[in-house]
C-alpha cells in the first residue's frame, strides 16, 4: 500500500518539487520519462517518492523524450492515469508524438518547464518550447508561479480525463525562475487531493479484453479532415466550460481562485500588458507602481489557458483599452510574436480597436525588470493619449546594441 505523506499547511517548495507532489498525490499509474534541464527534478523527486513507497505506479525511465511520450501513449491507451515532464530540446524531440497523443484523444499530463531552444544552446527559461506545442492539439495551461504549477498540475488530470474532453494537457512553468526557486506553497492533504481527482476512469481501454480497441488508424483524404475537425470542435466547445467547472471545484477545496484569463486592474485600464509565465506577476507589480507614480491607468492580462485560446474572454477584457503591449518571450524569427498575432485577431472584433505594440523580451533567461515593464506602460500611454500607435510595432527589450525595432516605423 502507498504511504501517505504528512504535509505542513505551508511547505517551502520550488516549482519542480511542487509539480512532483502533484504527480504523487494524483497517484499516477505510469510515468514514462527522460530527464532534461530544468525539468529533471520533477522526475528525480518522483523517483524518490517511488523509492520510499509513496507511489506504487510504474516508472519507465526511458532512453529519450520521444520514447517517454511513446510510452505514455501506450500506457494511456491501455487505460490509466499517465504523466511525464520535459523541457526545450526534449520537448522538440517529443513533438511528433504530441500530435499522436492528442489525435488519439489520450489524457496524458505533461509538465513543460519552459526553456529556450538551441542554437545557441541555452538551459534558461523562455517560451520557445511552449510556442512550439501550440498547434499540437493539447490543452495548454500556464502557471505564473510555483503554487500554480502544483494546483494546475492536479487540475490538469481532472480536465483532460473527463470523458467529454479526453485530451492531453500541458502544464507550463518558467524554467529556473519558477522551477528552481522556492516559495511558500499551500498544498492539499493527500486525501483531499486524491478524492478531488478520484480513480482514473478508463475509456476504450486496450486492457478491456471484452471490447478490443484499435488505436491509431490510417485516414487519408476521405476521413482525416473530419477527425481533425472533430478534435478542433471539442477544443473550441467543450474545454472552456470544463476548465471553468474544475477551477470552481478546486476553489472550494483550496480557497484559490483561477480564471481562464487572469485580468488584473483592467476595470478602468487604458493601457495593458498581455503576458504569460512569471512575467505576469512582475507586470502586475509594475502596473501598481506606475498607477501610483504616474497616474497611468495600467492593467495586466495573464493568459492562463493558451490552448484552446480564450478568444471571447480576452475580447471582453480588452474592449475599453486604448493601447496594448503584447509580450512574447520567444524569438518570432521573421514576424510579430505569437501573442501579438493572437491578440490582434481578437481586438479587431471590438468596436474600439486599440494601438498594438509587440515586445520581444527575456530570450534564453535574459532578465526583465520592473523598471522595464514600467517603461513599456509609459510607451503604451503615449500611444493611448495619441489615440494611435506611436513608434514601431515590434521592439526588442534589454538586448545589446542600438535599439532593435521592426515594422510600422
Amino acid at each position: 500500500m502507498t504511504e501517505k505523506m504528512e504535509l505542513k499547511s505551508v511547505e517551502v517548495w520550488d516549482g519542480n518539487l511542487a509539480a512532483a507532489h502533484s504527480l504523487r498525490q494524483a497517484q499516477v499509474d505510469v510515468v514514462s520519462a527522460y530527464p532534461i534541464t530544468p525539468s529533471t527534478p520533477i522526475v528525480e523527486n518522483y523517483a524518490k517518492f517511488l523509492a520510499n513507497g509513496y507511489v506504487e505506479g510504474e516508472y519507465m525511465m526511458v532512453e529519450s523524450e520521444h520514447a517517454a511520450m511513446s510510452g505514455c501513449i501506450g500506457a494511456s491507451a491501455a487505460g490509466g492515469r499517465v504523466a511525464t515532464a520535459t523541457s526545450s530540446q526534449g520537448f522538440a524531440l517529443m513533438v511528433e508524438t504530441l500530435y499522436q497523443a492528442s489525435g488519439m484523444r489520450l489524457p496524458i499530463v505533461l509538465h513543460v518547464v519552459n526553456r529556450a531552444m538551441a542554437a545557441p544552446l541555452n538551459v534558461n527559461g523562455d517560451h520557445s518550447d511552449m510556442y512550439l506545442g501550440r498547434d499540437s492539439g493539447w490543452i495548454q495551461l500556464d502557471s505564473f508561479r510555483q503554487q500554480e504549477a502544483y494546483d494546475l498540475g492536479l487540475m490538469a488530470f481532472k480536465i483532460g480525463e473527463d470523458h467529454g474532453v479526453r485530451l492531453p494537457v500541458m502544464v507550463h512553468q518558467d524554467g529556473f525562475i519558477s522551477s528552481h526557486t522556492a516559495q511558500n506553497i499551500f498544498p492539499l492533504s493527500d486525501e483531499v487531493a486524491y478524492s478531488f481527482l478520484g480513480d482514473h476512469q478508463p475509456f476504450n481501454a486496450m486492457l478491456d479484453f471484452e471490447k478490443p480497441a484499435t488505436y491509431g488508424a490510417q485516414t487519408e483524404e476521405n476521413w482525416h479532415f473530419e477527425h481533425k475537425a472533430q478534435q478542433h470542435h471539442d477544443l473550441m466547445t467543450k474545454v472552456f466550460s470544463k476548465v471553468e467547472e474544475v477551477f470552481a471545484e478546486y476553489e472550494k477545496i483550496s480557497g484559490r481562485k483561477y480564471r481562464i484569463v487572469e485580468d488584473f486592474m483592467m476595470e478602468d485600464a487604458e493601457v495593458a500588458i498581455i503576458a504569460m509565465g512569471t512575467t505576469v506577476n512582475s507586470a502586475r507589480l509594475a502596473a501598481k507602481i506606475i498607477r501610483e507614480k504616474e497616474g497611468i491607468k495600467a492593467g495586466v492580462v495573464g493568459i492562463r489557458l493558451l490552448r484552446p485560446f480564450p478568444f471571447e474572454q480576452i475580447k471582453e477584457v480588452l474592449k475599453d483599452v486604448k493601447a496594448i503591449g503584447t509580450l512574447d518571450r520567444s524569438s518570432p524569427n521573421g514576424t510579430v510574436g505569437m501573442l501579438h498575432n493572437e491578440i490582434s485577431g481578437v481586438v479587431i472584433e471590438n468596436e474600439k480597436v486599440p494601438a498594438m505594440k509587440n515586445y520581444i523580451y527575456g530570450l534564453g533567461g535574459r532578465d526583465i525588470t520592473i523598471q522595464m515593464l514600467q517603461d513599456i506602460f509609459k510607451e503604451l500611454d503615449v500611444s493611448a493619449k495619441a489615440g494611435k500607435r506611436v513608434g514601431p510595432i515590434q521592439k526588442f527589450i534589454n538586448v545589446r546594441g542600438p535599439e532593435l525595432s521592426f515594422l510600422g516605423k
Partner: protein
Amino acid sequence: MAEQKKIKNLKEFSKSVDRFEGSNLLCPGCAHSIIVREVLNATNDDLVLSAATGCLEVSTAVYPYTSWDASWIHIGFENATTAVAGAEAMYKALKRKGRLLQPDRPPKFVAFAGDGATYDIGFQWLSGTFERGHDVMHVTLDNEVYANTGGQSSSSTPIGSSTTTAPAGRVSYGEKRVKKDMMSIMAAHGAPYVAQVAPNKWKDMIKKIQHGFAVEGPVYINAMSACTTEWRFDVADTIAVSDLATDSLVFPLYEIIDGETWNITYRPKNVIPVRDYLAAQGRFKHLFKPENEYLIDEWQQRIDKEWVRLQRMEENSPR
C-alpha cells in the same frame, strides 16, 4: 502458466480462431499475414498488439475498418515496441493496484514492425525496451526493404539487391552493404529469448513463439517475410521462395536462449546453392551478368562462413 495451443496440422491451423482477419489490404502473396496469423494463433490468451508504420499497419487499420479482433495500437514508425512497453507497464501498475478490468486474464504484449522500423528508425526504442526488461515480444517482419514506400534500402537489405535507393545500373550492382546482424545484437541485450523464424517452417515457428510467450522478459523474433512486390517473384511462390531461403541457409533458423545458448532448429537435408535462391528473385537478376557473377560466389562464401559460425556458437553453448 499460459495456455498453449496445440495445432497438429495445417488444416487445424486454418480453422483456429482468427484474431487477425483475412480482410486486409496486403498484397496477394504477402508473407506478413501468414506470420501474423501464426504468431496470434500460438496463444489463446488475450492480446495487446502494436504495429509500426509500414505495410502491415497501412493495410489493416484503414478507418473506418480494422482487421484486428484484439487490442491494437499504432503510434509511429519508430516506437511500436515502446507502445506495447507502455501498455505492459500500465498492466503491471493496475495489477498492483487491484484495478484491472479482467484480473484473471493476463494478456500477451506483442509489437510488429518491419525491418526498417526495427533495424533502422526504431532501433533505439527497441534497444531501450529490451534494456528495461519489459515482458513484451517484438516481431520483425523482415522483408529486407522499405516495401511500404516503394522499395528503398534498409540496413536489413542484403548486398547486391537492387532497390530504389540503391538501384543496379551500368556502374552499380545495387546495395553495397551486407545485412545487419540483428539476432546477435538482440542476444547481446541479454534477452531471455531471441529466435529467427520463417513462415514456411510453421511448426518451428509456432514452437518458438510459444517459447517466447512462456518466458518472462523481452523476446525478439526475426521473421523472414518474402515480399512478392520488392523481391519480385510470382505471388503464388511465397512459400517456394521461403523454402529456397531456409534450405540455402541464407535464412538459417535458430534461437538464442538467455544470450548464451545457441540452438540451430532446422538443418536442411539437402542444402541448395545460394545461386538458386538469388535466381528466383528479380531483385538479384543483375547479379547473373558476367561482370557481377563474382558476387554470387562471394554470397555463397559468406553464407557458408555464417553457417560454420552458427554451428560453432551452438557447440560452444553452455548445456
